[in-house]
């Protein structure tokens, strides 16, 4: 009798842990995708884009607010239109901010991107209003595998993350533009002496990074709906994912994301659940102190 109960409990616990792992992995890919985007911009401009959370949000708003609700486009054309709109925006931002200021100090870069984010945020509030927007039926639903459940959106996210990762790796390693990006990040003067169009290169980087942001924005709509704070936590954790995985390494970002996703879910089970985020950030700090190069990162040279 009691043995039966014990085994039942064990099975129950096992299922719970499995479910936690699966959810952790799913969230991990969200973080990882965000981390990829950070890494990309970091690799190619040596700057960190702190407005990124707001770009994710902006993408979601443009998609849901402008194209789906106002213009009434169906989902697929709306996605394309959103990415195009965001690319235009990226070009604008690149030529007005990043390119003229390409020699600015890290401090200045951080502050100006933070402020850019704030401006985007307020503009969105003024234009779309403060209320959350939803796109009914977009990527909703779930998938059951035995007793495990995963939201359909997560599956799409994992899929898209892997595709983006693969494409970016190919792009960075194999194409000339991709290689030029790495040079521009290291030494803009020398890059231009190699015949690299530094400005165009930066613009492309920013456009790619912004489009990835908007894709992230679209993907998380079914999870958090379109509101101004939708990306605040994932962007912070995405940051952490990038660092834990090894800053500068694209696959590292995914690994870091998975690490955080799983650790925080398991920690949430052991500690009071609200300490989940604390655990994630403590991991970040420990990682930075013990192995600043991250899980996959190479040692940096000074």
């Amino acid at each position, binding site marked *: 009798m009691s043995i039966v109960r014990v085994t039942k409990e064990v099975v129950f616990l096992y299922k719970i842990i499995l479910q936690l792992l699966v959810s952790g992995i799913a969230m991990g890919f969200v973080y990882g995708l965000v981390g990829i985007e950070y890494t990309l911009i970091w690799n190619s401009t040596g700057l960190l884009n702190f407005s990124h959370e707001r770009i994710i949000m902006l993408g979601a708003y443009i998609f849901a607010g402008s194209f789906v609700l106002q213009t009434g486009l169906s989902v697929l054309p709306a996605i394309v239109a959103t990415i195009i709109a965001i690319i235009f925006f990226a070009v604008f931002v690149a030529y007005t901010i990043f390119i003229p200021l*390409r020699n600015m100090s890290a*401090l200045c870069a951080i502050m*100006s991107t933070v*402020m850019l984010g704030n401006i985007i945020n307020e503009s969105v509030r003024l234009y779309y209003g403060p209320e959350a927007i939803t796109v009914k039926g977009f990527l909703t639903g779930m998938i059951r595998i035995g007793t495990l459940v995963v939201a359909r959106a997560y599956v799409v996210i994992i899929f898209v993350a892997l595709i983006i990762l693969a494409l970016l790796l190919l792009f960075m390693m194999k194409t000339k533009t991709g290689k030029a990006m790495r040079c521009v990040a290291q030494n803009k003067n020398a890059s231009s002496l190699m015949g690299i169009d*530094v400005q165009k290169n930066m613009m492309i980087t920013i456009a790619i990074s912004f489009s990835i942001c908007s894709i992230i924005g679209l993907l998380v709509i079914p999870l958090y709906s379109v509101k101004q704070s939708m990306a605040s936590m994932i962007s912070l954790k995405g940051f952490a994912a990038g660092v834990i995985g090894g800053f500068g390494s694209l696959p590292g970002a995914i690994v870091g994301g998975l690490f955080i996703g799983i650790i925080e879910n398991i920690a949430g089970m052991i500690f*009071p659940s609200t300490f989940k*985020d604390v655990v994630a950030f403590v991991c970040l700090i420990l990682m*930075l102190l013990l192995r600043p190069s991250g899980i996959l990162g190479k040692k940096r040279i000074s």
Partner: protein
Amino acid sequence: MFSRKHTRKIYAVLIIAALAFPLISNNTYYITMLCLAFIYMIVAFGLNFITGMTGQVNLGTAGIFCIGAYTSALLTTKTFISPWLALLVVILFGFVIGIALGYPSLRLKGVYLSLTTIAFGEIVRQLVNNMTDFTGGAHGVRAIPPYCLFGFELNTKLRLYYFLLAVTIMFGLIAYRIIYSKWGRVFTAIRDNIDAVDTCGISSSKVKIIAFTLAAVFAAIAGGLYAHYSGYINPSTFTLNLSVSFVVMVMVGGSGTVLGSVLGAVLVSILPEMLRFLGNYYQIVFYILVFICTILIPNGIVNVFLERQKTKALPEKN
């Protein structure tokens, strides 16, 4: 254009203006706003050592400020000790945090350090928010008693104003003496080339920790003052946004100068209020102004006028 000598005159004018202000207008609105600006100034003075001078971006100042505020608030409301005694504990905490935060700064540079400080701020906020039994959680702490000075309770805005003004001047003086001293030079040297600092026989680790500790002590003390100024604190104040505001104060005002921190703190705490007439648009206008400042004058407003910066190398093309 003015040189360092002129800044003395400017300080004198500013102090006289601040002393006289309540005589001209004793509108609580303005007085309170200035009180807050004074508190922010102290934080900015401290942060200037790290962000303005050693060039490390600290985005966790709100966390230190928060610890200062909660330490003082909890000690005075739970154990009923005098706010002054609590202040001693706050200073002690400032030291400890400064060293604890300074330590990672030895191994991490640039964005890595910024990230750590963000994480630190976030950890503090979440802990304060979620350790409900101890900190009162999201409800915050209320009825924090005011400071007492020579038997006077600093319970009116005017008394508080003069008290905070005096404290701010004191910290401004300390900051001024540090900036224009060998320490100021070494802090800047750390930003410019850290390897060379060590070969000059100076332990760069020690200097960094000194900078962080100074900043932490300043921020913690300001936090303590803040708790008693506002009488009520809750975790929602101490967000990343606040940390960003502190950096904005240092940057927009003028990094590496006391006058810059003064100007920055006044701008950041008062400008949005002055823009309220813009209604719905006041925040965005404020952000746009700050944004323009950061990109057009990255060294801050004051440095545009300081003679020294003229000889500075211009960034080259590409």
